[in-house]
């Protein structure tokens, strides 16, 4: 309760300073001010522009997230299980992983145009690598002792996969997914800024092109809300799919 009050105080203080500084210390042209951002946000909220564009960005990010996440998990499992494949592909994966994926955007525009499909694919590629790499390392790190204990119970490879490898990979898939949320948004929004006529990224870019700082900030606020919502969704999914995680938190903490 006390923390919540303090948080509110910090927020009010920051907004107050911003409101005060705007037009007095720094030109409102550059930093706008909370009151006009609020007004702008309200107006794009009630005329539906914000929700429509947010919906577009969200569906790009979510579709890309699902496609990239699934592909990443499957390829990660496959490569993690096969030593030979892993050895063959390792340098290629590292090379690809180290490259900033944003640099691929122009190529994707060239290949797939500027519409929905391109933005989804772009997001999917970014998510793919994060989820893939996490799953892959996770599968490689499944304790060999644990596998041996199960082999001695008479477990065959199919048992090991079903009982040990896949469930333990889920933990890692989610680590990758959680990491991917901001990147999925980066993918979608960068694609919109570079080549869009809709979406939150387009709104940011469009407002900035018209020197409408309030519009930029209002759109950014929309981006922030979307990011929080996606994070929350992943957390909820995690709680449903990995109940044992949650169970541990109820235990009393000991040092």
């Amino acid at each position, binding site marked *: 309760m006390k923390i919540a009050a303090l948080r509110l105080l910090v927020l009010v203080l920051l907004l107050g300073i911003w409101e005060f500084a705007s037009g007095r210390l720094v030109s409102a042209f550059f930093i706008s001010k909370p009151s006009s951002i609020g007004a702008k946000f309200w107006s794009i909220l009630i005329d539906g522009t914000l929700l429509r564009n947010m919906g577009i960005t969200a569906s790009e990010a979510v579709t890309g997230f699902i496609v990239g996440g699934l592909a990443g998990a499957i390829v990660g499992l496959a490569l993690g299980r096969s030593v030979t494949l892993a050895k063959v592909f390792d340098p290629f994966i590292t090379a690809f992983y180290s490259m900033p994926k944003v640099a691929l955007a122009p190529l994707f525009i060239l290949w797939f145009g500027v519409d929905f499909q391109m933005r989804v694919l772009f997001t999917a590629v970014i998510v793919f690598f994060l989820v893939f790499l996490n799953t892959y390392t996770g599968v490689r790190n499944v*304790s060999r*002792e*644990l596998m*041996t*204990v*199960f*082999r*001695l*119970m*008479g*477990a065959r490879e199919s*048992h090991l996969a079903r*009982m*040990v490898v896949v*469930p*333990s990979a*889920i933990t890692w898939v989610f680590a990758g997914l959680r990491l991917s949320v901001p990147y999925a948004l980066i993918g979608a929004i960068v694609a919109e800024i570079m080549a869009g006529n809709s979406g939150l990224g387009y709104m940011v870019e469009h407002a900035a092109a018209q020197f409408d700082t309030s519009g930029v900030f209002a759109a950014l606020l929309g981006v922030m809300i979307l990011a929080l919502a996606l994070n929350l969704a992943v957390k909820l999914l995690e709680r449903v799919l*990995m*109940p*044992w995680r949650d*169970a*541990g938190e*109820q*235990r009393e903490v000991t040092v």
Partner: protein
Amino acid sequence: MDRPSAKRHETSEGQDGALIRFANVSKRFSLEGGEMTAVSDVSLDVRGGEIITLVGPSGCGKSTLLNMTAGLFQPSEGTVFYEGKVLSGLNLQVGYMTQSDHLLPWRTVFGNIVAPLEIRRMGKAAARERVESLLETVGLQGFGGSYPNQISGGMRKRTALARLLAYDPQTLLMDEPFGALDALLRLRLQVELRILARRLKKTVLFVTHDLEEAVALGDRCAVFSARPGRIISIVTIPLPEDRDLMQLRYNADFTRTCADLWSLLSSELARSGT
């Protein structure tokens, strides 16, 4: 050599009474920059239903012997016989329990114990019944629905023990299974282990570095030298079958045997003292 496998359980001992026989077994590992001899020329006969404890300085290859009994790898020299047959490949007659409990964190206590039964395709109802009775055996009634991270270390050990008993292996390989537990809990699990092993006629190879544990649990105790591990002595523990583990500390035979083992080991430690 070959026996019909259906008769395996009645004739659980080899021709000459040994269930597990190590015959002049040595094991070398090649490491970077040379070879390391883990065990050297070990010969030991383990009778069916016997509890053998293995003690010795750390790194003396006690675990290596267990691993070879499980068939995880072959000896470099010598032979390991199980039921009179040369061991090759995984030995599915054994169950392994180590210091880490190796439970599946995503399965409840029940789910963990039922895992080996699922592997054996036991029917759901029969498996449930078996797990329920095992939960009772190890004193975990009412905890079937808890996840491993919700229960204490001792309860996790019990869960691992119940899982081990669930698929009823003939031989239990235990590598310092109670190492990380507090003294009281350890004692309780030792009591339970001895009672269960006797009742279910299990053969047990039990590695420990705790001499009192070795004496309390074992029918015989094999004392190892420092690396390369050789057996320097096999001590028959002069305690009755139905010993009361709770009262052992006041038993003269117990204290004397511990002291004997200690003098064996301490001279060994002094010799190898680097």
